[in-house]
């Protein structure tokens, strides 16, 4: 992995590498969020996931989230790496690290980042279930689409 704070990668994510990017001598708190491939979702079994991204725009949107966080929590430093391609159970899909002099901001900024990723970063995941496959279309992961296509809805 490179030193870029915002990355889309195809190889496995090394959490220590992300932490390293945000370490600072003035920061006493680092929070990380690690999103892994979950085997069971509401009783359905996932065999593996496939992530696709509109890569250049995804990187841009990750950087935009970084800017938003810099405005809301000025003392923080954030790094986000999202993996694409095929991911097996327990593999890391996304890692977010935030360093801050104090812990409250590190938690808040981190949670904000994952919420925003699910809103504005053009990355899609396709669930390969034990009984079929589905592109997941709801940003907040609450409503997987029953068919292979999303229910139409106005996202603007």
């Amino acid at each position, binding site marked *: 992995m490179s030193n870029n704070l915002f990355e889309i990668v195809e190889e496995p994510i090394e959490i220590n590498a992300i932490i390293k990017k945000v370490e600072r001598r003035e920061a006493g708190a680092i929070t990380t969020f690690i999103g892994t491939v979950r085997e069971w979702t509401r009783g359905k079994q996932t065999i593996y996931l496939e992530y696709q991204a509109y890569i250049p725009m995804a990187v841009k949107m990750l950087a935009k989230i970084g800017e938003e966080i810099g405005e809301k929590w000025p003392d923080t430093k954030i790094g986000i790496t999202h993996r694409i391609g095929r991911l097996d159970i327990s593999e890391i899909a996304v890692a977010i690290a935030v360093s801050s002099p104090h812990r409250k901001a590190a938690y808040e900024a981190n949670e904000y980042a994952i919420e925003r990723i*699910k809103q504005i970063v*053009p*990355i899609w*995941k396709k669930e390969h279930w034990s009984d079929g496959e589905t*592109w997941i*279309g*709801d940003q907040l992961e609450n409503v997987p689409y029953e068919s*292979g296509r999303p229910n*139409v809805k106005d996202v*603007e």
Partner: protein
Amino acid sequence: MITILLFAHLQETVGKDRIELPIEQLTVMELKTALKQTYPLLELDHVMTAVNEEFARDNSKVTAGDIVAFIPPVSGG
């Protein structure tokens, strides 16, 4: 020439990940209407659009050389 990028189920529906159209200028809305005449992409009315990697509105202008991407609801993370 306008380049259109397709992702996720849109890509599977059309069977390719990009379409090139020899058009000089039109709006996002007009582009969607044009595409729906050729492809079974009814949900285009309801996905977001990015022009040159920035989210755009239905009345935004698209000009030759631009890259337009249709962004179905995202599910990263």
